[in-house]
């Protein structure tokens, strides 16, 4: 792949596509219903390679991703290299929280997160008192092999004067030296990974295709539940460690927001994608949702909006009972992507507040016929988009890995047929 210069035609196409999405965000009528494209391992099926190849072969991944974008011409595509080609980087960092193709799951299976207790309940105080120290000495060695040895680092706060001079002796320990060398090597691989992502995104830009977002974030609750306490640990904390959990949610909302703002501002793309795991109706009571889940997340949303960014939470599963609560954001600033929530209902409750994205069902996309896909797109176009809903058409959470290519063609064809 060589660098391309964006032609005036490509620039016009790029601007028109991006404007379509930005019109939706601003709750203005776009010239037609925009279409989003977010595949992960579907690209392997589309390109005729294994999931493992897609994870490890940067060039193959970029070539297949480009072919998909050029064939379907989405208004926005996801960061296709970042989402799939992380195998070398994960190997280098010795990442323990994921099983991926060729590393814990079969060569043709998608990666899967390993839900575990990565922080013990009695460690809340330590994390709250010194998040960085907790990360360095406890969390990082637990979740990534390259950091094993960081347990031997000194506690930095409190080092002063000659204690500071003496305190750095730990950096000469063989365990710490070995860890630092591994981390540097891992970082070099992540640099290559990021460079491929940047090159792909620039090339798509030159060809006229905007990337939907390049920064992702997480709600404070999901951050603690998924990556620290584990699903059942977190649910027990709602009763056993309520006050400490609330304190950590507050603290996490601050540093998660800082990360998201810095990432998005550096990338130049204002959209921040936030997959939402623990908000669904079935996962907690309305009272628990309004106590534990929503307040810290809302603060993050407002912080992102105040920084001139566009939060795009993807509300997984069915969040129908949450709609009235999550309506409480300034109008014209967010994209709410729904997975299983009925989109017509979401439009009725939220249509005057947020742009919508989604939500062709995974079962339809993987087992249905092109005619059935056509009918489902038509339903969304007629009952949401043409009734004033600022809908970005997409699948429920991106194109399911097993989707027949004919169904993806049917989705794009139907969106153009009914979304004009």
């Amino acid at each position, binding site marked *: 792949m060589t660098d391309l210069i964006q032609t005036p035609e490509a620039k016009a196409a790029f601007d028109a596509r991006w404007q379509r999405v930005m019109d939706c965000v601003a709750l203005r009528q776009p010239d037609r219903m925009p279409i989003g494209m977010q595949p992960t391992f579907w690209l392997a099926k589309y390109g005729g390679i294994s999931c493992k190849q897609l994870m490890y072969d940067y060039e193959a991944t970029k070539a297949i991703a480009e072919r998909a974008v050029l064939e379907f011409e989405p208004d926005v595509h996801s960061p296709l290299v970042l989402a799939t080609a992380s195998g070398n980087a994960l190997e280098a960092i010795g990442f323990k929280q994921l099983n991926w193709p060729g590393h814990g799951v079969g060569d043709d299976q998608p990666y899967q997160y390993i*839900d575990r207790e990565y922080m013990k309940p009695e460690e809340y105080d330590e994390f709250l008192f010194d998040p960085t120290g907790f990360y360095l000495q406890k969390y990082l060695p637990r979740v990534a092999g390259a950091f094993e040895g960081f347990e031997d680092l000194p506690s930095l706060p409190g080092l002063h004067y000659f204690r500071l001079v003496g305190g750095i002796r730990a950096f000469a320990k063989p365990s710490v030296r070995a860890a630092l060398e591994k981390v540097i090597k891992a970082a070099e691989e992540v640099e290559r990974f990021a460079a491929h992502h940047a090159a792909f995104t620039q090339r798509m830009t030159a060809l006229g295709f905007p990337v939907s977002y390049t920064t992702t974030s997480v709600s404070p609750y999901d951050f603690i539940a998924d990556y620290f306490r584990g699903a059942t640990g977190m649910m027990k904390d709602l009763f056993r460690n309520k006050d400490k959990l609330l304190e950590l949610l507050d603290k996490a909302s601050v540093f998660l927001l800082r990360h998201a703002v810095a990432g998005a501002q550096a990338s130049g793309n204002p959209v921040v994608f936030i997959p939402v795991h623990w908000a669904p109706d079935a996962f907690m009571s309305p009272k628990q949702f309004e106590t534990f889940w929503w307040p810290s997340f809302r603060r993050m949303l407002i912080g992102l909006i105040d920084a001139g960014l566009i939060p795009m939470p993807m509300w997984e599963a069915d969040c129908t009972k949450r709609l009235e609560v999550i309506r409480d954001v300034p109008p014209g600033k967010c994209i709410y992507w729904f997975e299983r929530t009925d989109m017509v209902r979401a439009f009725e409750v939220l249509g005057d507040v947020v742009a919508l994205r989604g939500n062709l069902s*995974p079962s339809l996309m993987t*087992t249905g016929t092109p005619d059935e896909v056509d009918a489902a797109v038509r339903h969304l176009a007629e009952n949401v988009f043409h009734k004033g809903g600022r809908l970005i058409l997409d699948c429920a959470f991106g194109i399911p890995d097993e989707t027949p290519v004919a169904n993806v063609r049917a989705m794009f064809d139907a969106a153009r047929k009914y979304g004009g």
Partner: protein
Amino acid sequence: MHDMTDPERQLVEWLADMNEDDAVDLAKRMLLEEGADPLRVLELCRAGMDIVGKRFEEGEYFLPELVLAGEMLETVGAIAKPLIRHAPGEEPKKLGRVLIGTVHGDLHDIGKNIVSFMLDINGFEVKDIGVDVPVQTFLKEIDAYKPDVIGLSGFLTLAFDAMKETIAAIDGAGLRGHAKIMIGGGQIDETVRSYTGADAFGTNAVDAVSLCKRWVGVAA
């Protein structure tokens, strides 16, 4: 359970109300200081779990309460069981046997575990054979356990094909017999049920309990 003493009633209430510390303290006192019959205490735990299950079915309780209830049951059970000196009386008759597992390729277990817990507290004998279960393991386990209901769980879209394949193999091996097959998971709907050839689907633990009760002829 009608003939309860005041402390017994209190234990059931604290268990049902998620008052973990008081419930566990009281159960400990009853067992370790007052010499209560451990089988009686376990019976009281069941009564508490019955209320938890009902509140879950009625939409008052959600997953966090089920998880904490399971923990309380385990804590009290761990104290009570070693104290059982005589052979337990006749165990209450189970409503039926359910074999449950997450299909091959899928490592998710939270939904499956909650379904197992809810079936257990609703009177079913449950055998949970774990995650990423190969087709051959399902066949072997079904043959040995002779379940009334087979539950296939899966969270990822790859589970659609794995479920279809597992069900076809169960049919092919002549093991379906009178057993009913239910599938469940975050992405499961009627389209997937029809695709896989399952008898029914559910998206939560209440659905699973209702299906099993209906199939064994108990009013749900």
